[in-house]
């Protein structure tokens, strides 16, 4: 049984780390971008960002004043159990979110959509979002927090099989053009593309592709992996860089995730995880061990399974 106290304490630490420490994979990607950037203003922006990450870590202050809308992804090994059950876990994550909002401090971004009520703690109706997934083995739980900005860079469109790859490409470019100008998307970003699913799942797939996959990862389907590489290249060939200034770095990584959809459609979503690509992860065990990391390792073969039964041996042989 995993102690609820350990869950809450770890969750608070994760909120702090996510807000302050840029993940190494994104940092490496941005350094590479900074080395290749020759647009004068874009280049200035990237160098300022690199300096900013250092300042945040040195001072232990949030890297961006817009600390996003904090949310949680929880993954449980099939054998995991939590002291007090899942309701206790949800309460612990809500408490950690509220308490870290004050202690880091984070910006209390969450308000009621109509009455603009602000509890000053990033907690409210449906906030923070908590999503779950399971793995067939293990007695651990993974806590993942993501602090993603929420206003620009995201779009959805129902495409159809006749739109084809060229249609996907066009909507991808449209999203970069629309939100890249003036740097509304805070690029260079990790672009997540969701293809398929029903409308809500299409959005979820794209969101997860941007926030739960690290820079340098690729989709296990080799043809999708090729598209990812091609799309990264395409995005960086527009001639737009940071803040919409002339430049050649718009996309640090393009991650595509797919789900089965209606036979008549090909829904697509695009998400941009920004210059402050904030995520932090910890695995908790019943014996009290906690291991921190920055790779959510969300998209396991089990999460991407397509058969009725889960047959790991069969998958491995393929």
């Amino acid at each position: 049984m995993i102690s609820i106290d350990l869950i809450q304490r770890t969750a608070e630490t994760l909120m702090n780390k996510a807000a302050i420490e840029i993940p190494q994979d994104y940092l490496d990607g941005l350094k590479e971008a900074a080395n290749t950037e020759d647009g004068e203003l874009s280049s200035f922006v990237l160098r300022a960002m690199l300096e900013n990450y250092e300042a945040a870590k040195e001072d232990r202050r949030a890297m961006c004043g817009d600390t996003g809308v904090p949310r949680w992804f929880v993954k449980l090994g099939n054998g995991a159990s939590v002291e007090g059950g899942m309701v206790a876990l949800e309460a612990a994550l809500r408490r950690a979110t509220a308490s870290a909002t004050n202690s880091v401090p984070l910006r209390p971004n969450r308000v009621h959509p109509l009455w603009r009520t602000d509890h000053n703690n990033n907690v409210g109706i449906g906030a923070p979002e908590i999503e779950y997934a399971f793995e067939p083995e293990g007695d651990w739980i993974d806590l993942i927090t993501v602090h993603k900005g929420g206003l620009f860079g995201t779009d959805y469109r129902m495409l159809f099989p006749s739109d084809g790859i060229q249609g996907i490409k066009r909507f991808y470019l449209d999203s970069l053009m629309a939100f890249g100008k003036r740097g509304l998307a805070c690029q260079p970003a990790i672009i997540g593309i969701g293809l398929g699913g029903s409308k809500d799942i299409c959005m979820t797939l794209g969101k997860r592709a941007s926030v739960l996959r690290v820079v340098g990862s690729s989709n296990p389907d080799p043809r999708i992996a090729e598209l990812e590489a091609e799309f990264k290249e395409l995005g960086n060939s527009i001639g737009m860089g940071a803040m919409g200034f002339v430049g050649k770095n718009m996309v640090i990584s393009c991650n595509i995730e797919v789900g089965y959809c209606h036979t008549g459609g090909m829904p697509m979503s695009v998400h941009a995880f920004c210059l402050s690509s904030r995520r932090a992860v910890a695995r908790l065990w019943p014996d009290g061990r906690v291991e921190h990391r920055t790779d959510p390792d969300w998209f396991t073969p089990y999460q991407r399974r397509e058969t009725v039964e889960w047959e790991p041996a069969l998958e491995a042989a393929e």
Partner: protein
Amino acid sequence: MSTREIRLSTTPTPEALAELRLGDIVYLDGLMYTAREGVYIRALEDKANIPMELPSESAANFHCSPAARINSDGSFDMGAVTATASFRFAKWLPEWMEKTGAKLIIGKGGMSSKDYKSYFVPNGAIYLSTVGYGTGALLGRGVENVEAVHWNDELGLAQAMWVIRCNRMGPFIVASDLNGDCLFERENAKIAENIARAYEGTKPAVLKRYGETDDRSEEVI
């Protein structure tokens, strides 16, 4: 063009503003205040009295909600500071400038040259963009002191009017000048030449959407 670095007061003289060129990097000294939709609505629509002497105390309006807290003893802790996108505030800015004499509008992404020419230039004001976005920790280092927080009870921490003493706070980029020229539109125009090549081979989606344009040199703001 090479990048110039300039120290500027938050109550700048017209001469100092006239010196600024698009793309200059600016660091600010003096008092600035945050004001965004909450403050604009309260001051302009609900006609509440603005709790500062403007522009004598400050002519710098920051479109910002800080990552900050008010401690139980009434003191403040301000961590990171970054801007929010300014184009959404065009509705209130002309009246706000007239009322407060703001000369520096500081935010994310700038306004259109139409905004600059119609009410920035007549008011002798310019736009400074934050960098990134956003360099929250660097800007946070430029906060020498939080002098006051107004309207926290009415508006909440994120929309309250924070009064900040800046000491070489930056970097900011000059995004409009006293002519009303717009840095972002200048960059858009340069990028526009290449757009058709990037789109080569693609075709419009079979299902259209209302209000859609195929002119990618246009903006959506």
